[in-house]
Structures are given as C-alpha cells and as structure tokens.
C-alpha cells in the first residue's frame, strides 16, 4: 500500500502552503504542477472552495474578441465516468475579461493562463493583440473550436491552417504561448508538430472528444447542440496516449497533460507519460476542491520520486 492518495480532509484549502515540488513550463515556474482546465474554473464560484493562488496555474474560460452567448440549454449530459458538454464558449469578451476577471485573479496572486477562443484567425488575432499588453502570464490558444476556417472542422484539425495561425499569433506577443490540441484528429503528433513549427512554446492536451447522449424516453439528443465534448475519467487513457505520442514526437516541448485527472495518482501517470504539468477539468465540477486535492496528493507522491521532481523543476519531462 503506502502509496495511496492522502485523505481529502488533511489539508485546508485556504491555509497558506509552500509546495515542495514545482514545475517550470515554457520558462515560467508553477508552484506545483497542477492547474485548472479552461472552462471549469470561475473565480466567483471556485474561489469559495480554495485559495486560487495555491494552484500551479489558473486557466480561464475561453476569451473571444466580443461577448459570446454560447449554445442553448440543455448544455450537459452524463456519460459513464464522464460528461458531455456543449457550453459553446459563452463569455463576456476580452474587454470585460481585461477589466474584470484578470485583475481580480492577479490581485489574488494567481498565475494566470488566459485561454483564447476564436471563430476565425482574425478573432484569435484580436484577442491576442489585446492580451499582449495585459497581466496574463501565459496564453493558451484553444484551436479546438469547431466551425469556420475549415468546413465544419476546427483549425486544430488541419496542420497547415494551424501552423499558419500559430505563426501569426507568435509574432504578436512575447508571452509564453501554449497551443491546446484536440484529440479529434487522425494523428495528434502531426498537429503537435504543426503548432511547434508555428512557434508554440508549449502544448496542452487534450481538449474534449466529440460525443453525445440521447434520451431514451423521447429518442432525441439530450443536449440542445446535439453533440458536445466528452470529458472526465472516461477519457483518461485516451489523453495519456496523446501525451505519450506527442512527447515521443517532440522530446523537448513542454506539455500540459489534461483529461480525466481526478487524483494525484492520475496526475503522476500523466507526468510519467511525458507531461511537465497537468490541468484538472471535469473533476472540479464534481468536487470543487479537486484541483487543490490533486496538487496535495501529487506533492506526496513526488516526495518519493526525487528524480521526477527534479526534472520538473528543471523544465524537463520524465525520460522513459
């Protein structure tokens, strides 16, 4: 035994705590290797459950050039060990973000990863232009949004379009730029290479997988948008394989592993697969304190793995 995750009750999520094991991601030090995943963190909600500065990083909801309404409801359905969501990037737009959410997060001393959303190259460029001079610590370009650019498919599925977009954004800012990849492709190593060629400083993966549920009483889709994105523990093995593949294709690229993480042990598995850090998504919807709990559990597991902990501090990934 011995190696089991610690009891959830043994930490106070508001008590200041000095993590022993951090991670350097694209030149920036996270105080621990655990962040929130975009779209599963809102300050007014999550801030009631833990001190947000305790986490390695806070990745915010996708920010678009103008306010977006998102999809009609219902926006969620359940699936075995997972969930399907079609929130549709509802957000009040980059101007509101810069005036309201970002200053609040920075006032709390969080390391902020601003997630960038767009329907077109132009959209992304507008947001990045405004964020370039902001207090955001890192940008995370979410190229997994369906529609526009490529006939029903997202820019993140077309290596050529992706490289072009990343190169354009790269020229607009000195901030560390993470490109967030979609698993809904034939070969994620190919899109990873395209992002790297375009100048990405780091990659985060994976975003959700396309999925749906139907109501067997009515025979109709449950989600108004029909399909949505699958997240949660169900996708963990798929996410691990994506991280593994990309790590083999790009030995030196910083990778943020995402997908189904709900314990320190899950996070550790991603680090062994080649991630430099992780983000916790759907698990935080079920257990609001999940990100901090994962960070604490991982801390203990890293205590007994000094070689791995040391590599992370040096900005390196685990070597198989």
């Amino acid at each position: 035994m011995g190696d089991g995750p610690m009891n959830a009750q043994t930490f106070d999520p508001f008590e200041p705590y000095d993590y022993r094991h951090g991670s350097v991601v694209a030149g920036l030090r996270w105080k621990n290797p655990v962040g929130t995943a975009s779209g599963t963190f809102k300050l007014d909600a999550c801030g009631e459950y833990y001190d947000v500065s305790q986490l390695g990083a806070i990745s915010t909801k996708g920010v678009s050039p103008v306010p977006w309404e998102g999809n009609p409801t219902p926006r969620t359905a359940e699936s075995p060990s997972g969930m399907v969501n079609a929130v549709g990037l509802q957000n009040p737009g980059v101007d509101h973000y810069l005036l309201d959410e970002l200053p609040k997060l920075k006032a709390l001393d969080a390391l902020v990863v601003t997630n960038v959303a767009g329907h077109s190259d132009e959209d992304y460029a507008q947001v990045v232009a405004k964020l370039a001079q902001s207090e955001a610590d890192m940008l995370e370009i979410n190229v997994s949004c369906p529609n526009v650019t490529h006939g029903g498919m997202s820019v993140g599925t077309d290596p050529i379009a992706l490289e072009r977009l990343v190169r354009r954004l790269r020229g607009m800012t000195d901030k560390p730029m993470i490109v967030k990849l979609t698993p809904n492709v034939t070969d994620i190593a190919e899109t990873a290479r395209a992002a790297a060629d375009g100048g990405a400083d780091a990659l985060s993966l994976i975003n959700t997988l396309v999925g749906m549920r139907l109501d067997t009483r009515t025979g109709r889709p449950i989600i108004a948008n029909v399909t949505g994105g699958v997240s949660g523990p169900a996708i963990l093995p798929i996410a691990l394989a994506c991280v593994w593949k990309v790590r083999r294709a790009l030995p030196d690229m910083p990778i943020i592993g995402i997908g189904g993480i709900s314990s320190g042990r899950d996070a550790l598995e991603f680090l062994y697969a080649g991630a430099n850090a992780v983000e916790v998504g759907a698990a935080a919807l079920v257990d609001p304190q999940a990100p901090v709990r994962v960070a604490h559990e991982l801390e203990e597991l890293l205590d007994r793995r000094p070689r791995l902990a040391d590599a992370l501090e040096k900005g390196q990934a685990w070597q198989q």
Partner: protein
Amino acid sequence: MLTIRDAPVARNARPGQFVNLYPNDRTAMLPRPFGIAGVHGDEFDLIYQRVGAGTRAFARLSAGDPIDLVGPLGRPYDLTAAGDYLLIGGGLGVPPLISAAQGLAGRGDVRAIALFGYRDARFADGLVGRFADRTLSVSACEGNVITLLDRIEPELEVEATTILSCGPIPMMRAVAAWAGRRSIRSQFSLEERMGCGYGACLACVVDTTDGRLRVCKDGPVFAGGRLEWETAR
C-alpha cells in the same frame, strides 16, 4: 422524501437554496440538485421524484447510509418585504416553497398563502400547512394555479404582495404574466440541467435582462421582471 443530517447545511440553508447530491455509483459524475424543503435541528428534508438512475439509487438508501453532497447552494428567495406572500407551486416545484413558508412562519409582518397545483395527489398540502397561514390547492382536473390566483385576487393589496413561485415553466410563465399585468412583485425558482451546480461551468444558463446568467449561482431564484420568458423552456 429524504431527510439528511448535515449540521452546516441545516444551519446555513435559506429558503430557495438547494443541495447537490452525488450518487454513490462513481460512474455517475454529475450532481443531482434538489431544493431544500425545510430544516429541523441539524437535519434537512428533500422531496423528490424518481426520474433516472440517480434518484432510483437515492430511493434505495436506508436510514444511516452516507451520501455525498455539496450545499447549500444558490441565491435564496428575498423575504425582506412585509405583507402577503403568495407561494405558488406546481408539481415538484413545491419543496423550496415549503422552505419559504417555514422562513416566513412566526413573522408578525407577513402572511403566507400557499397556492399549489398538483397533477393528482395533494402530497404537499400537509407539509406546507404546518407553516403557511392558508393553503389552497387544485389538482389538474379541477383547474390550475391561475384559477386559485383569480380566486384570491380580491383579498390582495398589490403593493404589499410578493409572489414566490416554483414549478413547470408553462405554469411559471402564466404566473409571471398574471403578476406582470397587476404589477405584483414576483420571484421565480428555475431548474436547468447542470454540470457543476456551483457556478464554475456555465452549463445551466437562463436568459435575463442582464444577459445569460447561471441558474445554480446567480439563481435559482430570479426576480420575475428579469427573466426572458419567451426563450425559457
């Protein structure tokens, strides 16, 4: 009905708030939100209907079984005004109104009148009757809550009346229209499929005059005038 012992929830819950229950079956991830139907000591009550796997599992729980929950959650009813409160509930919308009646009970400056519409069995008349000053109810074959509203209207003084309502959208839409025509203050409690139930994911939105807001965090209680009833489902 499920009674849960959880001292912090029972102590802090205010009428109109809800709790998220989590099925013990860990393949089920999402919260099951339920309106709090009343508190007593360190316990609180839920009234629920069996719908799917989660509620079926709750129905199989025995006394003493543990259950995961988060709460109390959401914005409660605003009960600061004095005067008459009309508690208008339909179907499974009654639990928060029973709470509201409990919250109003014993206050000298208010009168609580429950107007409940049922599909068939009048299961909540007794529960609300312990707290409300008066209880009127109607079952589907006899009419609906608007029938009751019309009946009670002559007794009401518009400025001193507050409507609290929870139930199916068509019922609430009718109540909102009825109240709007008479300029009676109203508050509505909504339901929506949730992802997190505490405000993090934006799954549970409703259109309001202030834009798309979260039912779980900005609601579930909204002032009648703020809701866009055309797009509500």
